[in-house]
């Protein structure tokens, strides 16, 4: 439901398939980009792609990792034998890039393009409210540096299209004369391609000019996935990979699966399974605020999860969602006790009593473990039928022998956070 990054291999394959149509057939990019995933049978590739064993190759991880060159995640000017060996070594390997640790499982293989550094150019297109900006620099490549400061920019108001002449005049001042027309046409086509296919970001760094051909060497792109209903046919089969390092736990995957089965929304991210502050908050906006407040009060390290349920999930789904969280939070005892914040704003139309029934069922099921783990529960909620829902929660405290404090709209939404955590630091 927003701007989503795509894999380099998908982005390049799309260009190879379609850029021609946006440049009057002038810029044909050969589709020689192979995407390798965990299921790919490497042995079968040379048969399918004859050029693999004839040409020099480049292999890179294709998982939205920035600055791969600098992290030594590149295999350049190699042959198929080496490439295969390297991929086999790297596949499923855990690596750390910056602060993020993740597992390598997608690669792109492309022909190695022999070229001079002075043939490398930088181009990017970005989008803002009022229009799109084309950024260009005649010295592209990994050392391009701070493009925001360095690149020449051409702002194109939304709905307008720049001409090749305009591009040449405004952006290509430092490009050798004999290449100006070629690059201008390429960028002109690239812009309409970008706009028509609902891209929201596209960076090619570098592309090289080889005779009459423009070859993209490295590409990063984002699409507006809400435009799926307009552009899906042209996009072809692409996926929107999760950011590098975001591998889902079993419970997160389970909630994602539940989420896909209902029109309502169920989300869960486990931040720290040993954290002492767990939340079960209704509403996308409210859930962020609860997480904020925990952070603002200095309990960032203790925040165990982020998540939300909204859109009036039925009792059964709410129960399954609550059970997953309660199970996670009662796996390991913490001598200082654990907090569960069942929070939410004033619902528009979600039936509070109904969703609470599901949560109560899960709490009952874990009665023993909740007691053993010294869990303290705080509830705050408003909306349709909230009085009944809150009364049920109040009654539950006595029944379970677990301290449950219950508040309604008269209490500030996040007050339960400070109530729970005050004096705890």
């Amino acid at each position, binding site marked *: 439901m927003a701007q989503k990054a795509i894999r380099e291999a998908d982005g390049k394959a799309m260009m190879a398939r379609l850029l021609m149509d946006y440049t009057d057939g002038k810029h044909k990019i050969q589709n020689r980009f192979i995407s390798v995933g965990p299921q790919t049978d490497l042995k079968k590739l040379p048969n399918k792609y004859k050029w693999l064993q004839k040409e020099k190759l480049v292999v890179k991880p294709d998982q939205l990792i920035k600055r791969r060159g600098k992290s030594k995640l590149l295999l350049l000017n190699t042959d198929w034998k080496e490439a295969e060996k390297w991929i086999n070594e790297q596949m499923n390997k855990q690596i750390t890039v910056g602060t993020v640790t993740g597992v390598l499982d997608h690669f792109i293989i492309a022909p190695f393009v022999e070229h001079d550094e002075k043939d490398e150019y930088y181009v990017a297109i970005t989008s803002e409210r009022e229009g799109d900006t084309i950024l260009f620099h005649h010295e592209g490549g990994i050392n391009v540096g701070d493009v925001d400061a360095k690149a020449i920019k051409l702002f194109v108001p939304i709905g307008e299209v720049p001409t090749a002449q305009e591009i040449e005049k405004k952006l290509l001042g430092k490009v050798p004369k004999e290449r100006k027309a070629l690059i201008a046409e390429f960028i002109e086509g690239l812009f309409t391609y970008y706009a028509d296919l609902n891209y929201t970001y596209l960076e090619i760094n570098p592309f090289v000019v080889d005779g009459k051909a423009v070859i993209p060497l490295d590409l990063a792109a984002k699409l507006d996935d809400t435009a799926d209903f307009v552009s899906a046919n042209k996009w072809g089969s692409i996926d929107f990979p999760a950011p590098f390092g975001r591998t889902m736990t079993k419970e997160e995957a389970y909630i994602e699966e539940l989420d896909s089965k209902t029109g309502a929304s169920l989300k869960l991210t486990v931040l720290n399974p040993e954290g002492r502050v767990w939340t079960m908050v209704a509403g996308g906006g409210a859930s962020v605020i609860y997480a*904020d*407040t925990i952070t603002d*009060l200095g309990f960032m390290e203790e925040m165990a999860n982020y998540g939300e349920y*909204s859109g009036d999930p039925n009792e059964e789904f709410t129960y399954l969602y609550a059970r997953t969280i309660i199970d996670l939070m009662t796996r390991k005892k913490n001598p200082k006790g654990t907090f569960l914040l069942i929070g939410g704003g004033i619902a528009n139309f979600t039936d509070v009593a109904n969703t609470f029934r599901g949560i109560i069922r899960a709490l009952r099921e874990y009665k023993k473990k909740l007691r053993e783990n010294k869990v303290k529960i705080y509830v705050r909620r408003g909306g349709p039928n909230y009085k009944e829902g809150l009364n049920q929660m109040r009654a539950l405290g006595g029944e379970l022998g677990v301290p449950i404090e219950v508040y309604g709209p008269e209490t500030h939404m996040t007050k339960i956070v400070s109530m729970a955590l005050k004096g705890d630091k």
Partner: protein
Amino acid sequence: MAKKATTKTKTANKKSYELFNRDTQAFIYNMQVNATQRMLDFDYASGRETPSVAAIINPTGSESLQKFFYGPKEILIPVYKSIERAAGKHKNVDVLISFASFRSAAKSAEEAFEIPRIRTIVLIAEGVPERQMRLINAKAKKLGKVIIGPATVGGVKAGAFKIGNTGGTIENIIESKLHRPGSVGFVSKSGGLSNEAYNIISRNTDGLYEGIAIGGDRYPGSTLLDHLLRYEEDPNVKMLVCLGEVGGEDEYAIVDALNAKKITKPLVMWVTGTCSKAFKTEVQFGHAGAKADAEAETADAKNAALKKAGAIVPNSFDDYAEKINETFTTLVKKKVITPAPETEAPKIPLDFNKALSAGVIRKPASFISTIADDRGEELMYGKMTISDVFKKDIGVGGVLSTLWFRKLLPAYATKFIDMVIMVTADHGPAVSGAHNTIVAARAGKDLISSLVSGLLCIGPRFGGALDGAAQQFSDAYDQGLAPQEFVNSMKKKGVNIQGIGHRIKSIHNPDMRVTIIKNYVKKNFKTTALLDYALEVEKITTSKKDNLILNVDGVIGICFVDLLRSELTKEEADEYIRMGALNGLFVLGRSIGFMGHYLDQKRLKQGLYRHPWDDIAYLME
């Protein structure tokens, strides 16, 4: 007429900062019955003289009038096919509230652009492509239109005008005092949180004056700043409250406006998403725009910048309410605000459904059903979900036993039901029912009429022997009549024994259908008491005439009694027979054949059948 004229002038007199007032009327795009009713409830609670909805645009339906409640009484609201048609009839409307889906939201806005008088366009849909929205926004700017949304619940001007579902239930609207104006101008991205904000405002100030949720998308039609600037201009707004969000740079436009003194009224503001630093990889929160791509887009950076520019920024959302309260109290002390008086909202009658679910009222149901339920997540046949019906592969016989006898009979029994349906499915084109179906089909009638004309033949002489046989044999058996006594008594009464006799088949030339069923029943049934009895009777009747055999109707009817009596209580079993369940089996089975004959005739393009004169003896005297 006079009234209309005044409304018109009032609209024309709206100030540039004023999008809505107590006379504003809107078009609702797409048939949104609930949202419309909620707007009308708000209108009534606010004491508006005219409803805020002038008409509904239903592009896929036909033009009509739709009934709604206005307080306790009912009113009619016209429905048109296009905005243009509606605008031609309602000259005072300057707001369009579009519930068009993400696919057609942009198109609905384009359509509204064609009507010069429409000034404010609200787009509710979530998931409108960014480029489409940017184009719409650029065009709106050129034409001087105001867009609220997309991906929003809308907004509310307290006591004057409410967009769609804003504010939740009517109870909440009145609890949050949205039915009368206060002094606070509020704007947020989130629609979900706006309700909470109205609650906070109602508890800490004299109430909301106007609140807008601009929507969570990256490129909303109007920005936080746009609305803050309107509130700045509006003399009725005394203080500003705003809720921003991580991602995007809109909040910096507010910082600039504060620095440039374009905003001078006190502004209490908080940017949510300070928790994003707790996440290691980038996180997309609930809203499309809520993602920080750069340090400046983080909530911490924005809160700091706002504070520096003079906004009243709490330390956390936790003391947001306190800051709002302090600011309000100061303004009252300074006599900038004279707190708005409390007014009682007229009572809106409770909706029947709501009252029912709240347990406030009750009413005896006019109908009862104990066999199927379509209300839950899944269709239920008896106690079985439709997915279990297939998982357990209970077959047509299983479904039938569940729906007819409220019990899933064991496999031998459901298989028997399947057999009965198969065996009775057809008996050729010459039997009276099939003939009737064929004649009707050839007269050009449709499937249902042709089928029914065949079914209407089923009765005592055609197919009805199932019932009759079951009844006669079980009566005799239950009375303890010996087979010979039974045959004698029937003879004495001059009544044919139902289920006995066949036109062609005889003891020497048995009917295969009967043989198949008999064998199955003998092998699988728990009891065959009545079948055994009937076979004794058959021995007697065939000794008189060899075609007086137990026929297919008889064997089915009789075996079914054995079946029901071994699976249900005798009373239940007898009642089902009395109610005609057996006839039902025949009707069900034979419908397959009748429809086959109907399709056969249609496929063969058979013309109208007319019976030949020579086959009718005209005996007029």
